[in-house]
């Protein structure tokens, strides 16, 4: 038996340098404000902190009325998508040190969905269009045994299974901003996830739904969605694959 031997003196971890970050947050309280307005906050943060930590610090130490959604705080639940310095990002995945701290950091709610309060928007229209593409397995066989799938068949749609429905892509889409009728990238990504799943039999139904004036043909390939996706999904590519499948007539 060997025991761990402490070699030399324990070294104290180097202190994480701290700095002052200025956040300019777009505030809105429907009961008080007629229009949203921008409010400045100065917070002392560390190099390991994220935008979400700064928001927490503001809410807990400076202004308890600041409202925003967050749940897991680790980039999985998709609650805290917001517009940070003009780009849709998850606040919990954006490190302050990666932003230009010589300038203030602008934080506002995602666009294109009705603003409810501060950084919170009404997600109902987003989930309505998600529901309308039937995001569930459609299969005629009874679920009595495993539905076997090869590695290649699984890999075909692996990319789009990563979606966490944070709405960063849909609310970064200029076509979605115009009238909100467009299905939006997130709904198409989730349709893609089932259209190219070998176990699923509803591909044709979903292709018909998306073969619409407000479906994939409204995509103008601006790549905002691919840039916004916190999961690194190549959203525009997925949309292009759905377009190609519609033209082919099958997945």
């Amino acid at each position, binding site marked *: 038996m060997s025991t761990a031997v402490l070699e030399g003196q324990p070294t104290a971890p180097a202190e994480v340098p701290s700095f002052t970050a200025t956040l300019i947050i777009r505030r809105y309280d429907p009961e008080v404000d007629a229009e949203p307005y921008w409010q400045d906050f100065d917070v002392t943060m560390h190099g390991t902190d994220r935008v979400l930590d700064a928001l927490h610090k503001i809410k807990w130490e400076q202004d308890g009325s600041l409202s925003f959604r967050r749940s897991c705080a680790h980039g999985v639940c998709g609650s805290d998508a917001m517009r940070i310095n003009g780009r849709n990002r998850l606040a919990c995945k954006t490190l302050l040190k990666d932003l230009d701290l010589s300038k203030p950091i602008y934080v506002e709610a995602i666009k294109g969905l009705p603003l409810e309060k501060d950084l919170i928007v009404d997600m109902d229209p987003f989930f*309505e269009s998600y*529901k*309308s593409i*039937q995001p*569930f397995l*459609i299969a005629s066989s*009874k*679920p*009595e045994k495993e539905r076997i799938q090869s590695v290649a068949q699984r890999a075909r749609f692996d990319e789009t299974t990563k979606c966490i429905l944070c709405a960063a892509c849909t609310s970064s889409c*200029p*076509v979605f901003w*115009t*009238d909100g009728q467009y299905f939006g990238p997130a709904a198409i990504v989730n349709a893609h996830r089932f259209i190219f799943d070998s176990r699923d039999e509803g591909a044709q*139904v979903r292709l*018909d*739904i998306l*073969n*619409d*004036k*407000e*479906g994939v*043909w*409204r995509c*103008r390939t601006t790549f905002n969605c691919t840039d916004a996706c916190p999961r690194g999904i190549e959203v525009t590519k997925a949309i292009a694959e759905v*377009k190609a499948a*519609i*033209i082919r007539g099958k997945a």
Partner: protein
Amino acid sequence: MSTETIPTPRSSYAPPRTRGVNWEKWGWMYMRISGLFLVILIFGHLFVNLVAGDGVRAIDFAFVAGKYSTPFWKVWDFAMLWLALIHGANGMRTLVNDYARKPLLRRVFLVAILVSTILLILLGSLVITTFDPCPAGMAASALPSFCPAP
């Protein structure tokens, strides 16, 4: 062991909103296909007019008249005219659909695009098909120098 069939989950399934010919799909495909041809047609046009031979200095009325004396360039320009104008008009239609929110404004813009496109296509087609550098019955002073004496 047997399992009951699982009923389909309730979802707000709406049947496709468009019936009949799917213009949006064909419009999208038209943009891709015509774009492909236009790359060849336009760059060919630019090369022949501006680079080949004497380059841009060669362009004058006689140059154009010379091109239009061959069926090849008539067909080339005819294809370019139709493909490019419809391509451009369809692009502007999508812009109007994206950005003109008021129904009346949208209608006005769409009709204006349609009318101007048809007008331009008809005018251009008329010129290409009926172009004659030396029309009969014109005074010799009004004709270009290369026309044969009447």
